């Protein structure tokens, strides 16, 4: 494998890790506040469709992004209503949201565009186009560092940079602000937060809303950045890989970045090489597909450090017992 190939694989790693990272951080906010969210997949899918649909109709990708975020926020609202207001089962609500998005996107796509559940291909301003960082062209001749800068770091769409910037931002918000402290506390011991006179319901809704916004960006990136338009079931389990990455990262932002890069790398390898020949035996492509899930089970089993979720996760808060 020569240097250029490595750069190319890493480049597609960055691309493929971006939606995972955004969804993973989305789940991080929600679960740190004590709301389990297995509906990441559905929210991404809804956002992917609405961003592509609005971008196709208006020709503006920014309006598309807004529409995607709005769609994701609506589903977040449903999740919040079910799991915070009516104290329902958060897991069941997440399952319902996934199916709702899977069905509604195709129904509406068929009704609006009549192209068998897809949107028209996006062209020109309907997509997020790559951004050339300054001097990328001139520096590309510099050995080693030049290609790394011009190929790997430069030339991604704006949402990729947003996703990577969201990692330190999340860290800062969660560990260096009052809001972050309260958000983490509400996931560990909501009664204590309530005693301090801070609204548990308000904090949890805020967390679920942030989760909605990030899932919205993730979905919009899928349909308008990574690909040019929406196709049915285009999230293809990415919401669940993000969930796996979240557990892998043990609910911490910087580890989430490494976990998502790892899983993005696995996807990039699986895309580029069908079966990997290791001399003695070949690794079939299906192993690469299944690897994120297998790794997560191993982590969950506690063989490589124990993954302890936020203590109050999954339990509705009842103010008075």
């Amino acid at each position, binding site marked *: 494998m020569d240097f250029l190939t490595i750069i190319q694989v890493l480049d597609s790693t960055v691309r493929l890790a971006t939606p995972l990272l955004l969804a993973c951080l989305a789940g991080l906010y929600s679960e740190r506040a004590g709301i389990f969210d297995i509906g990441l997949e559905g929210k991404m899918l809804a956002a992917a469709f609405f961003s592509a649909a609005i971008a196709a109709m208006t020709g503006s990708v920014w309006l598309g992004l807004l529409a995607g975020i709005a769609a994701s926020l609506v589903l977040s609202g449903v999740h919040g209503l079910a799991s915070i207001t009516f104290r329902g089962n958060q897991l069941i609500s997440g399952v319902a949201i996934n199916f709702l998005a*899977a069905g509604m996107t195709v129904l*509406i796509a068929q*009704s609006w565009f009549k192209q068998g559940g897809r949107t028209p291909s996006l062209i020109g301003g309907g997509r997020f186009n790559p951004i050339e960082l300054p001097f990328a062209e001139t520096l590309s001749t510099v050995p080693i560092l030049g290609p790394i800068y011009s190929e790997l770091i430069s030339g991604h769409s704006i949402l990729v940079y947003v996703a990577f910037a969201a990692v330190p931002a999340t860290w800062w918000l969660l560990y260096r602000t009052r809001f972050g402290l309260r958000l983490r506390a509400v996931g560990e011991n909501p009664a204590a937060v309530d005693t301090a006179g801070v609204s548990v319901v308000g904090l949890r809704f805020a967390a679920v809303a942030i989760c909605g916004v990030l899932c919205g960006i993730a979905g919009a990136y899928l349909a308008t950045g990574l690909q040019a338009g929406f196709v049915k079931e285009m999230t293809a389990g990415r919401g669940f890989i993000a969930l796996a990455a979240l557990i892998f990262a043990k609910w911490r932002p910087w580890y989430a970045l490494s976990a998502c890069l790892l899983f993005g790398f696995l996807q990039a390898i699986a895309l580029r090489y069908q079966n990997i020949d290791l001399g003695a035996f070949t690794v*079939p492509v*299906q192993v690469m*597909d299944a690897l994120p899930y297998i790794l997560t*089970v191993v982590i969950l089993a506690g063989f490589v450090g124990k993954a302890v979720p936020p203590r109050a996760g999954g339990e509705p808060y009842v103010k008075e017992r």
Partner: protein
Amino acid sequence: MEKMPTWADAVLVPLISLLLAAILSALVIIGIGEDPVAAVKLMVQGSLGSTYGWGYTLYYATNFMFTGLAVAVAFHARMFNIGGEGQAMLGGLGVAVVCLYMPWPHWSLALIFATLSSAVFGAAWAFLPAYLQAKRGSHIVITTIMFNFIAAALLNYLLVNVMRPKGSMDPATAKFPETTHLPTLHDILEPFGIAFSKAAPANVSLIVAITACVAVYFLIWRTRLGYEIRAFGHSESGAKYAGISPVKITVVAMLISGGLAGMMAINNVMGEGERLIMNSTEGAGFIGIAVALMGRSHPFGVFLAAILFGFLYQGGAELALWTTIPRELIVVIQALVILFTGALDNMVRMPLEKLFLLFRKGDA
């Protein structure tokens, strides 16, 4: 004091939830510019209007009975088995192994061993998540989701690289031999002089599914193990105090659940497909969640809910055939049923409880 009479809890709450889901579904149909009344008429006509329609409705219902029971048994132990899909895939593998690699003189023998094999394969796929939940505290929902994806990758590998017959491009096994083909409802009902559609896939597995419903009823309410499962589901600490082992109940309940999900394969793989293909489960493992929620985890409720979903599935296929409404409408209805009967349960229950309390005060 009971807040509500039992009948209201068991019948009224699910009915109102169902009604809400139906109203929203109708609004969705209006929203995409179609007529809900005409759509329902077409669905009823297509799924219940002929023995052909009934044959498909009952075929789907058979799948959903197995997966619904699987989710229901886990619910009784307060576990959420979201892995029915993967367990059913592995069940299909169990059926394929029995049908392909062993000679069978008669379908009845083949059915017995295929049922056992599918149950063992499904249960085996549920074992690891159950064991990890019981021993290492890893959340069963996450592990079963992961196992669904791993099952899909495993099946993909086996079908493409191992079980695919030579010269075939299709990722599927060879056709099962003639002697393992199950009699359809047409074959069963013919001796009684009842003419049933020959083309419909409903088969003898339906009887196995109904038997499974009865068996699960006896297991949960008439045996010691069932009592232990329910006790564990109500209160883990209480069950522990009574000398019930949490590890044992978690693992056993999940093995039964996985086995039931796996048994679905005798219907879709052995009865209908007569060979193992990719995605033969068609999401039935997930519909089991909706079926169990609607059936209130009671085998009779699961039976009724499975038939309702069978009707929805066949009706949805007819809609997709004759109108421009895509099949995904069923996925939306399924989502709404899960949302209202599962997650938003309290939205219906809380006002209803208040209403009943009001009436009771009036009596006093």
